[in-house]
């Protein structure tokens, strides 16, 4: 029996049906929706983490919380990327999207590291001044004023 007969025989025997075009549209749309939701979550986390980092950096507060947020943003960004990989067959889109997600995650993580490290150095410096002059500055701005006077 030739291949054509075998294929048609199997199709008839197992009642194999073609998927309708709607099946593929629905599949693409569901994947795209999941990717979009993940992207929105990722963007929210990124936004919150950057806002918090900026806020805390100005107050010279040392917290580890932004790391968790940055981690979450990277994770959701990665998940979004994975779902995009599966929803788009056009690899150029997924490639550029992947690069953007990676850049955002790297930037926010690097920024978090930099600002926290910077804040830590400032606080140490401030504590040094505080001990030397027996002054207890409570904020960065106070410290600046203190620096200005001297």
């Amino acid at each position, binding site marked *: 029996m030739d291949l054509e007969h075998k294929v048609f025989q199997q199709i008839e025997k197992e009642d*194999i049906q073609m998927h309708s075009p709607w099946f593929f549209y629905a599949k693409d749309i569901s994947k795209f929706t999941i990717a979009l939701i993940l992207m929105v979550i990722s963007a929210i986390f990124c936004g919150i983490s950057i806002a918090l980092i900026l806020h805390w950096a100005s107050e010279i507060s040392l917290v580890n919380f932004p790391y968790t947020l940055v981690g979450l943003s990277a994770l959701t960004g990665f998940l979004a990327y994975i779902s995009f990989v599966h929803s788009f067959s056009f690899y150029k889109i997924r490639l550029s999207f992947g690069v953007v997600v990676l850049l955002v995650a790297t930037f926010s993580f690097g920024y978090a590291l930099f600002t926290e490290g910077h804040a830590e150095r400032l606080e140490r410096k401030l504590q040094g001044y505080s001990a030397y002059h027996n002054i207890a500055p409570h904020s960065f701005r106070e410290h600046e004023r203190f620096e200005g006077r001297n």
Partner: protein
Amino acid sequence: MSIIAEFENKTDEKLVELIPRHKELFGVLIHRFEGKLTRYVRRIGGGNKESVEDVVQNIFIKAYVNINSFHKGQKFSSWLYGIAHNECIDYWRRNKKHTNISLDENTELASVLATDEDIEEDLFRKEEQEQVRKILDQLPLKFKEVLVLRYLEDKDYQEISDILKKPVSTVGTLLHRAKSQLKQLIKNT
């Protein structure tokens, strides 16, 4: 005149458009690609005659089921080879202890590759088919696959890129690495 005879000289893409309404036209595509896919599967996945036939049959069944996912503007052969590529990978994973590709195929690949770069010298110096076969079997699937698609299936970079769903530049890199690794393996033997 039967409908099949009527559409015999239509392009693959035109036939795909008609298949949802005339399922029997799928037979024309089976006839057109049976030989090519059998060769491709044998080259990539190895295995005996029966298992190659099973894989090819599965490829056509999958193509039939998913025929509506074929988009206009795509090349049907690339789309079908894409399915074949996935099936071969599945087969490869299921049967890690794959059998080797045939000696003739390797010799053919060796001679085609020999015209490229300076592998020629090394290959002809060895001139031992058995060694070439062993060397090719040592190559990872991803390298073997690009070599087969490029030199035995005669696909251009764009087609390989569509089949493997990788950018053209990646295909070029893969080919370059495959040839380098092949060259290295030849040197070491």
